[in-house]
């Protein structure tokens, strides 16, 4: 991970020098075939809304799913 981070930082500083305000993103210089080369992401329950509480997030999502089932509110 360190090398990746290093590369990203290097690219970042290079881009600042070379590209100035061009808004072009830094390119990945070092890549391992078949392995994700991008930035890491957080899990959805790790954001400000759930702060790592995965169980509540899952439960909320299940409850929310029920809104897609109109049969709950339209009995025969």
């Amino acid at each position, binding site marked *: *991970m360190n090398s*990746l*981070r290093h590369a*990203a*930082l290097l690219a*970042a500083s290079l*881009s*600042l020098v070379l590209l100035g305000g061009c*808004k*072009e*993103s*830094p390119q990945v210089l070092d890549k391992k075939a*078949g*392995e*994700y080369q991008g*930035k*890491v*992401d*957080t*899990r959805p329950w*790790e954001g400000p809304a759930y702060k790592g509480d995965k169980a509540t997030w899952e439960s909320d999502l299940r409850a929310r799913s029920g*809104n897609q089932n*109109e049969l709950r*509110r*339209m*009995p*025969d």
Partner: protein
Amino acid sequence: MLVKRSNRPSGPASSAQADTASTFSAPRGLDRRSFLKSSGLAAGVGAIGAGLPFAMVRPADAASDSKAAGAVEMRRSVCTHCSVGCAIDAEVKNGVWVGQEPVFDSPINLGAHCAKGASVREHGHGEHRLRTPMKLHNGKWERLSWDAALKEVSEKLLAIREKDGPDATYWVGSSKHSNEQAYLLRKFVSFWGTNNCDHQARVCHSTTVAGVANTWGYGAMTNSYNDMQNAKAIFFIGSNAAEAHPVSMLHILHAKEGGAKIIVADPRFTRTAAKADHYVRLRSGSDIALIYGVMRHIFENGWDDKKYIEDRVYGMDKIREESMQWTADKVLDVTGVPDDQVHLIAETMAKNKPSTVVWCMGQTQHSTGNAIVRAMCNLQLALGNVGVSGGGTNIFRGHDNVQGATDVGPNPDSLPGYYGIAAGAWKHWCSVWGVDYEWVKGRYASPGLMEKSGITVSRWIDGVLEKNELIDQDSNLKAVVYWGMAPNSQTRGKDMLEAMKALELLVVVDPYPSATAAMAASVRKEGVYLLPAATQFETSGSCTASNRSLQWREKIIEPLFESKPDHTIMYAFAKRFGFEKEFVKNIKLDKDKQGWDEPNLEDTLREINRGTWTIGYSGQSPERLKLHMKHMDTFSAHTLKADSGPCAGDYFGLPWPCYGTPELKHPGTPNLYDTSLHVMEGGGNFRANFGVEKDGTSLLAGDGSASKGSDLPFGYPEFDHTLLKKLGWWDELTDAEKKAAEGKNWKTDNSGGIIRVAMKNHGCHPFGNAKARAVVWNFPDPVPKHREALYSTRPDLIDKYPTHEDKKAFWRLPTLYKTVQQQWKNVGKDFPLIMTSGRLVEYEGGGEETRSNPWLAELQQDMFVELNPATAAERGIRDRDWVWVKSPTGSQIKVRALVTPRVGTDTVFLPFHFSGRWMGQDLLNFYPVGAAPIVRGESVNAGTTYGYDVVTMMQETKTTVCQIVKA
């Protein structure tokens, strides 16, 4: 290789991520729109992104400059794009509408939206809105201040009033106004002194309102979208709900999946037909023949509900006689539908009860529209399907508040609540408004004109162009105010352009400058003003969905740019015209952020409540409506009833009639004329509105057919002070009520006492209990009759089923029938294709608003004509070719060919939402800079022909003729 998030470094949000992000991503404000502007939209659509044409700061920009990241507030509103009434939750941050969330709690839409509803947030940003008042000067659009605009417009209008009388002006109102605004506009026009006002309903469901109300009492959808869940068979004819009312399909497909049979009859295999069990292709305009064919099978097989007819229907024997004329061969000849399919419709409707029917503009927009809709009513009466849950006539209205604007808005033949315009009606409303009847009378040119129906919006062009000696008012029209309606939704576009040219003054009040601006600027150099109105998301107020439920909208954001809500603009004009005090006698004034006076909308609704007894707009106080909006989750999505919670017992939105005062706590009426319920629980019966006897036959309902728990278990007339006295119930009124009710009937007793005693104490319906009329003897065709369209490709059928005689003075204008039909009898030789029109799901009405929304515009970028592969091949036309659609009027429009088996070989279909191109020419340069819609196209109505309903002046759009050639 699978890379999982577990590969991420331990600990909270990685610093590498943050570092990298900061290197390339310039920090931005929170305004999502500035992002949108810079993100490629402008490049994608060419010239429209040329930047802000006006040097002003939009409220949205101003708000996002504020450093403080405000909290997100939720505001609840209702979609403005059709009559289903889908609720919307808006997320607002720092005054900017930043997000839209589904309202799962709504019993009507359960969070669901079509393309239009899912994109309404765009109106809260409105890149293509009219931003400031403008006027046309030397052929160019110039900006002017509100003050200058109000001054110039009012001076010009007053000069015309002085010179040519108040009837020389025409006021086109809007079905997109809230109930309160629509109501205020009728009052405004009355105080100006004319009945020359109208709105979209004229060209949408006027024939329904007149035909249905004259059959059984009220001119509205009898049941509801939700109630269709209870139907066992659903017959669509002239309705493409999947595109025009998409969310209704949530309820309809629910019924289908529960076993209901769906039949769609239409000249075109629509998206709705694609979901049906059976599709029946009929020739456009032949509905009555088809319906009689169906009824013949019903009568022949004894499927009619004899007891129901005996007790609750007048004149069905005449309908039976007429239907027997429609033998299989005749039906086939006129409609093109073989007898086995006709039989299938009859059997499906008769053997799967309760069964319901749905119709829309496919039935209403004909010169025989009033008769077509009555034939549909008769079909349902024969089957005993009216006043029954799962049955009824489910007439889907068009605009979000077309029902409400019809009920209480600017109609040329009635004051709010269908009171009419006879002296009694004026006196009733003057007492509610708190103004002197004599004063209002003095505002009119004459008492005669005060009680004479005005010109309809479908004919204002003739009010301008017709020879003066032939019109039934003093002056021709000199000024027209388009206050929230598109011109391209009216027929005879070519004549309209001439009328626009001839006017002295044209004023457009609209959030979008609309096609009116561009059309007018293409033929004029002066005398056109554009005033920016706010959308319904920038104000509050109630609106009435097709099922008669009222919903209260909260203001989501402050009016954008320099726009003002319509009622604020009305008041500003009232001040200039000198009747502002009378205008808001009972209505508080609020100050808006710029210090303008704004009539209070809650007070306005209370005034509507105090006067509109006839149709039960009296019980829906703002407090009750707001409570419903807050507790939507307590209402059943099946019955619309709240079984618990603060609204327990009520039906959602207090669907009208919600009789009596708000204190009476009437729950609203889910299904009209339903005798299985007590009147205080939303029950009812057919209205006694046509006398008690006709030609020796009683018109009152039969014994035992009153609503549940009625103290009068038989037919009875409507309630007034004498009936109450005769029954010995008079003393149940309080002293104050007695004073108000003396000499009055239930419609004019402003205490609501007569209604209270009849309903609450005795379970009786204030409007009486009568039979429905299968024969409407006061209409030109009492028994609905098939008549060929004025422009028909079948001269042989014109001989057999000719149209009506010409009319000399009809809604103040001479109106031609036979003359036109005979003149164009052989039009089919040169114009052999039947031309019909309809909706696309992405757009609404004239379409300027929705075609200005990039999220919608992207989905339909070209005006087109659908034509059958065989029709195309005969003309050497390939799919996507440019073609000319030529009309007998001499008009021709250039559109794309869409070659599809969706239409038969004899018919072509064009959507009606386009404008901004005119007979091959792009009108872009005639719009104010930056305010043209993204997508422009030819208007189908540039090519439509003459033809009007013989009762309501509805225009004929669905059956005319054309020829198509390769461009």
